[in-house]
């Protein structure tokens, strides 16, 4: 057994997992406030990456300005999605709202490559491509910086829940009707959570776009993000951190060790297996709150 290889896979897996976790953060934010899983999160990440690319390359805006601009635009996009589409689903069965987010995902996946061109676009955010050597370990610089940024963002969102806005969002996640009764604007809290989810998806999209190029395949982040969100528990942000690391390491190690045995493709299947096992063994994830159903 080559321990150096496993250590290398593990460390890179941690960073990649944190980058996945940033996408999952949006799913958790939305689930915490509105109680539905956003299946459009992958497409939101893709849209964010396309938006950043569109602002930076065809418009010629420098990248340090393009990223904040697209963050603001995507915040608006997320909030508008909630206002125009999801809010009309209040009171409908949850299956409807989920199918709606799936429809948004499919539509975005067609719209953006259709109008912006399906070829892979380069998004340069100034990370040098040379790998970093840590003793004998070879570490991908782009994923390391991406992982660090994601870690910071997830910690930041933990802090957010101590602010005034965060308290409002916590109240809404506890009980929507009760928060309404004490004068909290529930719709606004949900819209803000959608905006924040879209913004965090944009950061994830930019980081992933910088490492693998911007094209439709960014929306495939959805399945990994779902795996993290479910493993960590859909309403737990610390869960995102820990499950992100678990999923990233599992995927990286499986790719490195199993691919030669079964002939490739394990990278795409690890997330699915984790989702399935979690749902069968512990449906509420590692840190999720048990959902009590009333008739």
């Amino acid at each position, binding site marked *: 057994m080559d321990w150096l290889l496993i250590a290398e896979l593990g460390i890179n897996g941690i960073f990649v997992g944190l980058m996945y976790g940033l996408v999952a953060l949006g799913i958790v934010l939305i689930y915490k406030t509105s109680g*539905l*899983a956003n*299946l459009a999160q992958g497409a939101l990440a893709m849209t964010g990456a396309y938006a950043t690319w569109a602002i930076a390359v065809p418009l010629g805006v420098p990248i340090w300005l393009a990223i904040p601009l697209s963050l603001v635009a995507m915040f608006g996009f997320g909030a508008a999605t909630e206002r125009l*589409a999801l809010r*009309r*689903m209040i009171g*409908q*069965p*949850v*299956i*409807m709202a*989920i*199918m*709606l987010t*799936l*429809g*948004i*995902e*499919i*539509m*975005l*996946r*067609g*719209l953006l*490559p*259709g*109008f912006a*061109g*399906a*070829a892979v676009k380069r998004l340069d955010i100034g990370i040098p491509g040379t790998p970093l050597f840590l003793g004998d370990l070879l570490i991908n610089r782009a994923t390391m910086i991406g992982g660090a940024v994601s870690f910071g963002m997830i910690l930041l969102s933990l802090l957010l829940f101590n602010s005034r806005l965060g308290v409002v969002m916590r109240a809404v996640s506890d009980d929507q009707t009760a928060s309404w009764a004490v004068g909290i604007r529930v719709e606004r809290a949900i819209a803000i959570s959608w905006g924040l989810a879209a913004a965090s998806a944009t950061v994830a999209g930019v980081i992933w776009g910088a490492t693998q190029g911007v094209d439709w395949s960014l929306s495939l982040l959805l*399945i990994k993000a*779902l*795996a993290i969100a*479910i493993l960590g528990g859909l309403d737990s942000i610390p869960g995102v951190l820990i499950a992100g690391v678990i999923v990233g390491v599992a995927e990286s190690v499986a790719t490195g060790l199993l691919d030669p045995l*079964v*002939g490739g*493709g394990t990278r*795409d*299947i690890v*997330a*699915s*297996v984790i*989702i*399935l096992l979690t*749902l*069968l063994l512990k*449906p509420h994830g590692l840190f999720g709150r048990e959902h009590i*159903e009333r*008739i």
Partner: protein
Amino acid sequence: MFYRRAGIRFTRYGQERQIWPLPLDRRIMLLILLLALAAPYLLDRLYLVGYLLPWIIWATAALGLNLLMGTAGQIHLGYGAVIGMGAYGSVHLVRAGAPLELAMLVGGLISAAVGIVFGAAALRVKGLYLAMATLAMQYIVDFVISHVPFISGGSQATITVPQVRFLGIPIVGDAAVYYMALAICVIVTLFMLNVRRTSFGRALAAVREKDYAAEVIGVDTFRFKLLAFWVSSFIGGVVGSVLAVCYLRSISPDQFHIELSIQLVAMVIVGGMGSVLGSFFGAALILFAPIVLNNLIGFMADSMEMQISTDLRAHVPLMLYGGLIVGFLLWEPLGLAKIYNNMRNYFLVWPFRHAQR
């Protein structure tokens, strides 16, 4: 005016319980059946094989999914994988020399066995968790199909379907292929029309509305959820073998990916959940709208000298599927079937609206 509802009053329960209680409906159904039977002699080959055949096959698949999503209320985002298992199972049996009728049934049973595994997830979780579990299982089955050489015959292999006979008739030529697909479609349609009149259908409806409440009134939720997955997957497997034998002629793993599942889910939602007629409407819209729109865009590009990229035209189907799902969920959650029903109810007694029940 068209339907002449006025003056029709039922005096026995049996009359009202009929599948088509109105005489006019029965006549329309007979006419449609006759037209469907005569289609090979009326239609051009292009329309028969290019449009009518895929329509009835996809509508049959949508009916199977509708049993699960509409009647039993369980989300299933992995129906493409179920169809794929049925297709591979039956094609391998046919290649091994088994008669098609047997292969079709065994393909259905294989799918049902896979479907039970999907259903096992439904026992633990529901709603959005079930959506994710089935989504994950779609990817896992995809992986298994393409990575097990015993099933797919190698990672990039396609398996051709040999010449087969169905009920003694060789399936060669367009008409025979069409009639076979039509026969399966009619059987599944009749089954779906009847399911809601049985105790099975009523139990599924109870589970759909609220599974705990169903449990309280004495419906064995465990059994009926699994049964719903079993029956729906069995239909999926049979459709898979029809799809392979009648339409695809040679199968490869990428034909049963997540795209097929999304297409079918879109058909069910656009057509109307729980509606038999809606499955046909939905299949027609989802199959043909991208073709029509693509032709329209091509026509516009030619006639108005507009520059339209191939990327845009290649992504028209995805935009349409997504747009149609979003649009219907927002504005007509019960789908095309509901729109049709509204019009029908209006014209049923037109112009004597006060005569409506």
